[in-house]
Structures are given as C-alpha cells and as structure tokens.
C-alpha cells in the first residue's frame, strides 16, 4: 500500500524523519513551525519531546500521526514513505498503526467510555477487546459512564484506552497531562508507561513539562522548530517518582 522504496539501513527505526520542514500562513505572517528536522524513533522506546508552546511540537506530532503534511522533507514508517501516501493510505495508516492521546481527551461526549473505545475496536484489524483496554487503564468500573460523568483523569484514561485498544505500533501523546492536576497527571503517565512496558508500544509524549522527561528512555527538545537536544536517560524513573 505504501511506497516501499527506502533502503534497509534504518530497519531498526520505526519512524524516520528526514529534513522535515513545515510552515503555514497565519493571516499575513509566515510561521515556520518546523525547520529541516531529522529524527529517528526506535521500536519500543518511550520518548519525550519537550518544547515551549509554539516550538512546533504539536505540528510534529500531527505530521507523524498522518494528520498533517509537511511543507518539505520526508517521513518514513517502517521504511514506507508516509509523506507520499494518498488520503486513503493515510486513513489506513492511522487506523492500523497510530494511537492518539490528546490534551483535551477529545472523547465523543455522546458515547459512553466503553463505546468511545469501541469506536476504535470496531474498525481496527486485530484490536484487544474494548473492555480489556479499559481494564488496562484501570477503568473496569466505569464502562457505561459518559464523558461528562468522568473526572479529567478518567477521561484521559479512556482516551488512552481508546488509543491502545487497536494495539498501535506508535502511541502519540500530545500534552496528555496538560489539562490535569499533578496527582491525576501522574496516574495518567503511569498508564502510558504501563502500556509502553507491557505492550512494547513505541511511545512519543510531547509536553512543555520538563519533569516528565524523567520517565523517558530518550529526551528531545524542540526550540523554534529546531531540535536543540536529543539525549538518552541512563535510568527511567517511574511516573510516581516524578515531581513538578
């Protein structure tokens, strides 16, 4: 389905970004969100991408997730070029390979927790049962609650369950704790870490909160659309050890 022309040197990399740039016009102002970015992500790693607001991190995660297209540069997923994919190929890519967690949870308010997860399991190829996904995030007692009946942390855990239920290869979390308090935030990070550890899902968390970096295998920092830091943690902290 996707272009399979790339070489095998980077077969270890789940995701490979080469010379990626993105600019868009805001009114009459040209905003350069990403500038010639090159990056690889490896299977099973938990990466945290840090950056202040406006640093381009949301743009990057959207491009990785197939929600947005770059102005130039290429993106390969398992060697297949995502940036050359058609609309239906992108849909299939998102459907099969990508799990999204958003800052504002973005649950469908008219569907219950279980139904929000089923939204994904109904269209994915080999999903885990929706109930199991909710159990994984510790919400087995909340199946039939609607978003409005859940706390922020619970809603975010439903969102995580929804993202992981399809057994994605790549879990993309955009400020997953941004709308949550400290305690609840840590609980959510716990779930993400658990998914990464137990399911081996390659996970990318983007956040402005530098403390979260402690739980990552790898920490990157984005500043004005450019990568200013890319390091590996020697030890991964458990989310419960994080402080901010």
């Amino acid at each position, binding site marked *: 389905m996707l272009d399979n022309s790339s070489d095998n040197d980077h077969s270890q990399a789940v995701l490979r970004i080469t010379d990626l740039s993105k600019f868009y016009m805001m009114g009459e102002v040209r905003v350069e969100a990403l500038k010639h970015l090159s990056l690889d992500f490896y299977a099973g790693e938990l990466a945290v991408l840090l950056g202040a607001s406006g640093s381009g991190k949301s743009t990057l995660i959207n491009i990785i*997730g197939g*929600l*947005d297209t770059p102005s130039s540069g290429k993106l390969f997923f398992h060697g297949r070029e995502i940036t050359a994919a058609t609309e239906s190929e992108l849909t299939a890519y*998102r459907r099969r390979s990508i799990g*999204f967690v958003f800052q504002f949870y*973005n649950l469908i308010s008219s*569907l219950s927790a279980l*139904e*929000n997860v089923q939204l994904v399991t109904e269209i*994915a190829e080999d999903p885990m049962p929706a109930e199991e996904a909710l159990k994984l995030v510790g919400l087995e007692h909340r199946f039939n609650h609607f978003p409005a009946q859940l706390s922020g942390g619970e809603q975010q855990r439903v969102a995580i369950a929804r993202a992981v239920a399809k057994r994605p290869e790549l879990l993309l979390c955009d400020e997953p704790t941004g709308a949550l308090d400290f305690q609840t935030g840590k609980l959510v990070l716990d779930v993400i870490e658990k998914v990464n550890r137990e399911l081996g899902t390659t996970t990318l968390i983007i956040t402005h909160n530098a403390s979260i970096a402690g739980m990552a295998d790898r920490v990157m920092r984005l500043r004005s659309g450019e990568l200013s830091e890319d390091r590996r943690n020697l030890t991964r902290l458990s989310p419960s050890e994080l402080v901010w």
Partner: protein
Amino acid sequence: MKSLQRKLLRDLMRLKGQMLAVAAVVACGISVFVSMSSVQYSLEASRARYYSRYRFADVFMQVKRAPEFYLETVSRIAGVASVNSRIVADVTLDVPGLDEPATGRFVSIPEYRTPVLNDLFIKSGRYIDPGKPDEVVVSKPFLEANRLVPGDHIGAVINGRKRELLIVGMGLSPEYIYEVQPGAFFPDKRRFGVFWMSRKALESAFDMSGAFNDLSLTLANGVSEKDVIMQLDNIFTRYGSLGAYGRSEQLSDRFITDEIKQVGIQITFLPGVFLAVAVFLLNIVLRRLVATQRDQIAVLKAIGYSNEDVGLHYLGFAMIPTAVGAVAGTALGAWLGRGLMDMYADFYNFAELVYTFRFENVAFSVLLSFAAALVGALGAVRKAVLLPPAEAMRPDSPVLYKPGFFDRASLRKKMPLSLRIIVRNLERRPWKASISVLMISLAVAILVAGRYTYDSVDRMVQVEFTEKHREDVTLIFNNPKSPSVAWNLASLDGVLEHEYYREEPVRMRFGHRFRRQSIKGMQSAEGLQHLVDKNGQHFTLPPDGILLTSALAGILGVRPGDRLQIEFLQGRQLHREVLVSGTIDEILGLSAYMNLGQLNRLAGDGGALNAAYLRIDKTKAGALYTTFKKMPGVAGIMMLKALQESFEELIAKSMTTSTLILTSFACVLAFAVVYNGARISLSERARELSSLRVLGMSQGEISFILLGEQALLTLCAIPAGFMIGIALSALLAHALSSELYRLPLVFSAYNFLFAFTVIVVVSVVSGLVIRKRLTALDLVEVLKTRE
C-alpha cells in the same frame, strides 16, 4: 460501525427540537405532494374510467331541430366512430318543499335500455319502463339536495303543460360530473338537476318526432377533431347549429380538466417551497453541527475513520430527520388525500370516485426529499470531509469583526452595548442574516398566499353577486321572444324592475383565429346588470362596437380598435364586422357585450330577447314564484340569492379546509425557521453570553442580545414576507387562471394582520423556549469547554 451510529442517534436526540422542525417541514411538503398527486391521479383515473365505461362523447353539438335521418350522414363522416342523437330541453320544475321554481335539464334516453353515448349510471332505483312517459331518472346531487328518493313525484312545466313526473331512479352521467345550469358557473344543487326521460315522451312533449336537437359522437383513434367539427358545421348550419365543439369546450369536462391542472400546480408549487426551506434548515443546522464538532471530527479521523465514514456520518444527520419527515408526511398525505377526495366528491359527481394512493408518487416524493436533504447537507458534509484533522484540533479562529457602518461615532454613542452587539453580529454576517430573513419571510408569504384565496373569493362574491347584479330573478326563455311578448312580464304584480337581454350565438373570427361565443346584447349597464371588472371598476356599455373580456380578446388576438368578424349562427346567419371598442377584465368566463339595439340591427331580425332580469317585491315573492312555475316558454330560472348561498356554502367548506391546511403548514414552517434560527444563534453564542453573565450582565440583558437579534430579523422579514406573499399570490392567480375564471388579486388588511399575528406568536413561543435554555446555561461549564 455501531458506535458511530450510536453517536449519530444520541446527537440527533440532543438536537431533537431542531431535527423535529426539519422533519415537520419535510412532512408538510411530502404530505402536500402525496395527497395532491394521489388526488390528481384519482381524479384522472376516475374520470378516464367513467368516460370509457359510460361512453362519454368526443364531440358535441346543439341544433335547433334537425331531421333524424341526418344521423346516417354524420356516421358516414370519416373518423366518426359512433353517433347519438338526443332531445335536450330545459324546463321549469315545481319541487316539493321548495318555494322557488327550479330548473330541470331534460335529456332523452332510449325507451328500452341500450348502450348509448354519455350513458346513464343508475345509482339507485331503476331505469324507466317503456310505455310509461312520466317516469324519469334524476341526477343524484339534485335528489339528495332536495331529499327526494325514487318513488317520489315532482312537477314540471314541459312545453307549457304541467306534468307530474315519477322519479324511478337516481342517476349520474359523465356529461354532468360538474352539474351546473347553463349560464351559471357554480352548482346550485337544489335548483338545478338533470332529468333523463324517454325519448318518445320528450319527442311528443316538444313536438320533435323524427328530429333531434342534440348530437354527440365519438371519434376513431387519431382522427382530427377539427376536421370532423368543420364537416358537422357545414351540414348543420342550416338547422340552427350553434357549432360543434370538442371535450375541451364541454363545460363539465372543462371544469374537471381545470381542477386537475390546478391540483398539478399545487403539487409543484407548495412542496417546492417546503423542500427549499428544508434545504435551508438542514444547511444551517448541519453547518453549525460540524462547527461545534470540529474536534470530534478530528478525533474520528485521527483514530482512523476515513473521510467517507465521517461524511456519511454527518449525512445521516440530514437523512434521518428527512426519513422521519417522509414517513410522517406520507401517512399524513394519505389521510389528507382521502379527506380532499371526499371534498371533491361534493363538487364532482362521479359514478365511482376511487381514491388511489400511489406508491410511485410516494417513492418519487421521498426521493425528491432525500435529494433536497442531500443538497442541504452537502455544504456541511463537505466541510466535515475536507476538514484537515490537524487543523480541526485547533479551535476555530475567531470571527473577524471590523468597524462597520454602525460603528461611526455618532451612532455608537447613542447605542447601548447590547444593541451594539446585535447590530454588529448582523453586520458581520449579512449573508446569513439575509437568508434567515428570507426564510422567515417565506413563511409569512405562504400565510399571505394561503389566505389570499379567501380575499379573492370574497371579491368574487362581491363583484359577481352584488356589484354586477341587482336583480333577484333571471328568467331564461326557451325560445327567443319578441320585445312585445317579453314586456308582459312587467305587468306582473310584484315586479319592481325589469330588464332584458339577448344572448346570440355567433362565431367570432379575427385573422386565422376563431371562436364559438355568444354576444350579450344589453339594454344598459346601469340598471339591473352592471359591467364590473375583477378590480371592482365599473364600465359603461359602448354605444357602438363590442366590449370583450380581456381573456376572450387574448384568445382572438384582438385589441381595441380592431374590427372583428361576426358570423351569426341562427336566424339569417349574417356575417358582419364590428369594432372592438374595449376590453374588460372580468372574473368569470368569456363574454362579449353589445348594446341591444346594435346587436338587433346586426342580426337583422327586428330584435329578440332571451332572458329577463327582474327585481321583485319580496312580500309578493311567493305568488310570483307560483306564477313562474306555471309560466310557459320559460326554460330556466336563476335566483341570485340562492346561487350566492349555494356558492358560499360549497366554497366555504372547501376553502376553510384548504386554508386551514395551508395555514397550519405555514405555521409549522414559521416555527421551524424561527426556532432553528434562534437555536443556532444560541449555540453559536452560548460562550459569549455566558461570559457576559459572568461579567455581571443580567439574564434579561443577555436574553435581549440573543432574542433581540431574532426579533430584528423577524421584523425585517414581515414586510419582506408581505411583498413575497403578494408576488406569490399573483403567481398563483396567474397559474390558476383559466378560461373559466380569473382570480382577482386582492388583499384585505385582515390577511396581513393574520400573517403578522401568526409570526409574532410563533416568534414569542420560540423565544420563550430559547429563554428557558438561556436560564439553564451552566456558566462555569460553558467557560471551561474549549471552543
């Protein structure tokens, strides 16, 4: 995709008010279409079946008296399939229980029952017995209106002799589906009926043995009616033929054909308006829905739903209410159609008026409404499909406000803040505001157009029964009388005023166009009969020349100043030329008026009179009626008052029903448009209004901002709606006009007041509903939600 369907259903439930409004509008449109198209089909099918089973003729002709052996000649005309001769005569009746005289049209039937053209359907009782000359079969509406049954007796003055007739059967004929007295336009069931009597009895009564005065024939397939008519005219001119004519000039058929045509206009016109409004409603509701669900659309796409999935999902929001409306509309339409059909059964006398509910029509209308829903939803669905998911994650960019016309310092100072918000909001989206105004004004317009027919018929009654006519009684003579004979009427005790006219059948010719028509020669237009056009304007009788109704002038293609060829069909059958002195736009029929003296001169026969208008002393009416009932030489009697009453009764019933239906539908439309507009506004502005509340504005103040905007739109829509309503009525009047009648374009203040009141009430009610929602606004929650 069960979860997505569940989301669809739950979201629909949340939007149930708006969706019900859409469904109601669709239901109105569909029900009009389904009922009217079923009625149209049923009328057409019933007519076709009736005509073929009872052998309704294709060509008709009345002559003064022609020898029976000419039938043979006629049947040899190429293309004539069958031919039938009859004796037809109008006589005065003495109906038990009716003071006034009535008129019977006597039509001859074979003594022994054999199939004939324009055959008789015996509804109850039996056919006449041979050898019993006093037996008659009588038309159903007349018997029913007079509460007579087979077995009863009725008096008739046949050729000057009073006879007691025995009613043996109740009958109907395709020739009299619309049963009116010659010269009248509306049925008066009590005072006019058709009587079928043995040919033999009528022959001897009217001294017509071996002769006939009425001919009907059917044509073989593919034969030119015009050719046959020409040959008939050539043969029978010398026998006083009034000219042969086809079905299109047969009064009863003409009325039904016009009715079917008018139903056809209603089928296209009303559902069209309703579907257009449904398109608009779906458009605004779905656009708003897509705007509020931007983030949900983004999520659906992010988790792997394709554009088609998302598009179909939002299309569902249009299709489900439409489907609900289609089902409800079909059911309502089936029911309405049956009711309307019963109403038609009052006007039209079919042997069998079968209501056929056609699923083809339902399928067509349902398809049409789905197409409309698709059109309405397309913009929003397209937006949902094209929405790039990454962009949808970001909140919609704030709407651009720029200083507008009302922001000029001088104006601004005088305007309170809340009013400024209203004005700016309207100014910012003039397109949306104009569409809302247009939609509300359409509802106003339908109300106006719906009640317009009321005013129009009122005017019709006013002109036809009051302004044009001052007489109480019209006596129609069976043979033209000399002026001296006619004036004997003046000596009758109780006759206060008397006036006569001549009705002369002619063929008018101008260039290649010609038409069978009668000329009415009047003594004056200032006495008992006046000349009044549809706008109520009085005309004088031209001293010289001929005055034509505009419709007739249009058919002949003549203009005032032209010279018209006149071929007299009776008497000396002279061909003359006469100046068209003017035209008059009358409500009913086609007419040509002339000064009686001039008409007499043109005819070259020293003068003849066909009828008398009499104004009578009410206290002596009883005695006069008795005299009229016995008077020889009188073919028909028309009572103006009775005609008016019968007209009003008949029209009032159908008019009330149709106006009620139309008004209810217009109310539904008005409510749907106004309520939806307010709901959309509320959803768009909830956040802003809550912020204002948080900042300290009162419930009343924010209600003013939201409802004030709606009120302003409604106020603009009302005068616009009046204008559109007038235009719509003019269009309707034009479309519904025929040779039989033209609806005058009149509007009473009451019409506008009614439309105004309905819209105000509907707006207030929807305002109250919205107000309730405003009170329920959760300030904190609204401020928390991201938008």
